């Protein structure tokens, strides 16, 4: 059923500092009380390049982009999501006596096994060779796709897309825990609750949206990364960033689900040459960004890289305009002074 309007989000990755406040806001709001939700991060922030959460989800495919749906693996808690962990702060930071045996900060308790993994296990690892190593943060929620594969995968119509705003929800009384939706979603943003035996997912904070408040990950963000609004509202910042200025791209459009969360790709500092000179090449290679972001499923990697370059050029020229005393609508949009500047719901 076509929706009357579609909620959208734009995340400006230039402003994401990887503090996980959005993740904690979401966790605190929705998934820290009921049983079986410990592994669920409806919002998570992962380091890119990286394995993501759950492990290697980007390579597993989804309902609309694999030839054999049987081949899509189902993530498990022990190896794909992983158990929560901490560092051995106490051992390292306690200074009683002369004990220096635990001077190194390591995960504690140390997860074991060949498939060891946990959320943010590869935090800040990234790629590249010093001094040209690089990484950036990618905050992710359910994309509330225009063509949601989870809806298509469910044989019971338990997953549905709300007509009033396009938010994708799971009817908890219809769901019988078959996990087809988990397979269906190539972003693995639908989780199974093994205690309640039903699928659960990001609800785009719809009770807040209904009260014209932004979703909690967006409002709590200290970096003011997110813009939230309706695709059809030409006065919204999401419309201006996506449709007018064309500076926001979709994550993995080749998954063919038409995600409604968009990203402004991140600038990066220049690389150093082998002789230590600053070059004009950004540290994050364009092909790395192009592998992640694009507009449509049909675009080639080169076309996607060109779009990233185009976006950087657009933003840079608008920055220059402001630096030389001029005005820029785009820069005004990207420097929201208040919540209402970036959230129009």
């Amino acid at each position: 059923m076509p929706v009357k309007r579609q909620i959208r989000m734009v995340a400006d990755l230039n402003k994401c500092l990887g503090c996980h406040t959005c993740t904690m806001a979401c966790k605190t709001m929705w998934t820290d009380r009921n049983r079986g939700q410990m592994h669920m991060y409806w919002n998570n922030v992962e380091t890119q390049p990286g394995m993501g959460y759950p492990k290697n989800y980007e390579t597993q495919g989804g309902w609309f982009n694999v030839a054999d749906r049987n081949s899509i693996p189902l993530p498990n808690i022990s190896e794909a999501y992983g158990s929560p962990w901490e560092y051995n702060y106490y051992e390292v930071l306690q200074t009683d006596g002369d004990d220096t045996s635990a001077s190194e900060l390591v995960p504690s308790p140390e997860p074991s096994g060949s498939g060891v993994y946990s959320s943010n296990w590869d935090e800040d690892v990234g790629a590249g060779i010093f001094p040209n190593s690089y990484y950036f943060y990618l905050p992710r929620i359910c994309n509330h796709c225009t063509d949601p594969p989870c809806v298509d995968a469910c044989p019971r119509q338990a997953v549905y897309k709300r007509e009033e705003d396009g938010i994708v929800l799971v009817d908890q009384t219809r769901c019988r825990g078959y996990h087809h939706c988990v397979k269906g979603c190539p972003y693995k943003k639908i989780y199974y609750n093994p205690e309640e035996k039903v699928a659960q997912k990001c609800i785009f904070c719809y009770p807040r949206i209904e009260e014209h408040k932004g979703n909690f990950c967006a409002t709590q963000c200290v970096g003011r990364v997110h813009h939230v609004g309706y695709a059809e509202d030409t006065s919204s910042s999401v419309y201006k960033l996506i449709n007018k200025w064309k500076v926001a791209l979709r994550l993995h459009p080749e998954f063919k689900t038409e995600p409604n969360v968009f990203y402004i790709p991140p600038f990066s500092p220049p690389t150093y040459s082998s002789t230590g000179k600053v070059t004009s090449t950004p540290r994050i290679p364009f092909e790395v960004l192009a592998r992640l972001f694009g507009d449509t499923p049909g675009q080639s990697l080169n076309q996607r890289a060109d779009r990233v370059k185009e976006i950087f050029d657009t933003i840079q020229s608008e920055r220059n305009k402001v630096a030389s005393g001029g005005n820029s609508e785009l820069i005004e949009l990207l420097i929201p002074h208040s919540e209402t500047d970036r959230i129009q719901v």
Partner: protein
Amino acid sequence: MEITAVYVTGPIALDPEDPAWDKVPETTVNLNKRLNESGARMSFEAHEERHIKVKAVHNGIDIFFFYKWDENEAKIAAGDYPVFPDALAMQIPFLTVESPLCMGALHEPVNIIFWRSDLPMPENIVAGGPGTAQTSPDAAALNIRHYQTWADRVWSVILTRPLAAASENQLSFERRATYRIAFANWKGGVDAERGGHKIVSEWQNLSIQ
């Protein structure tokens, strides 16, 4: 096949050792229809030899069904994420003499008792076509008791409920009546059978003495 729910007097215990079972013939029903009825469109073997042994008995108040089937390994999902539990269902047309085998239809619904190895109690379900199975929400339909054990590579499951419907979501078993009954079986495991991926029997006859 003909399954007869034999009448015995006096109380019957929810126990495979109850003497009532000695008076009941055992019927073996073939589970030979492979279904892949879901949006998942997954592929399974086309045909498979599976069967279930059925006994039924009642005392005028409660009816008991005793099911046994081979299962090399009991799957009771209790741990990791994509493990699906073994399950069994018995389906009887609810309002009509006959209903479509695959979960009935809109005006020919079916009443199902669904047992799954990890559930605290079996579910009373009404369905009106594939994808419409709904666990009855009313407390009155929580009147199904069960016994389950897995030993020597065999599941033994006893399901019992009062003959008379306690809920508008249940059919009443009338004495001296014959019902159509069909069975479904799910072999659990990692990413294994669940929902519309199952093996079922043809319609059988269930006569209540």
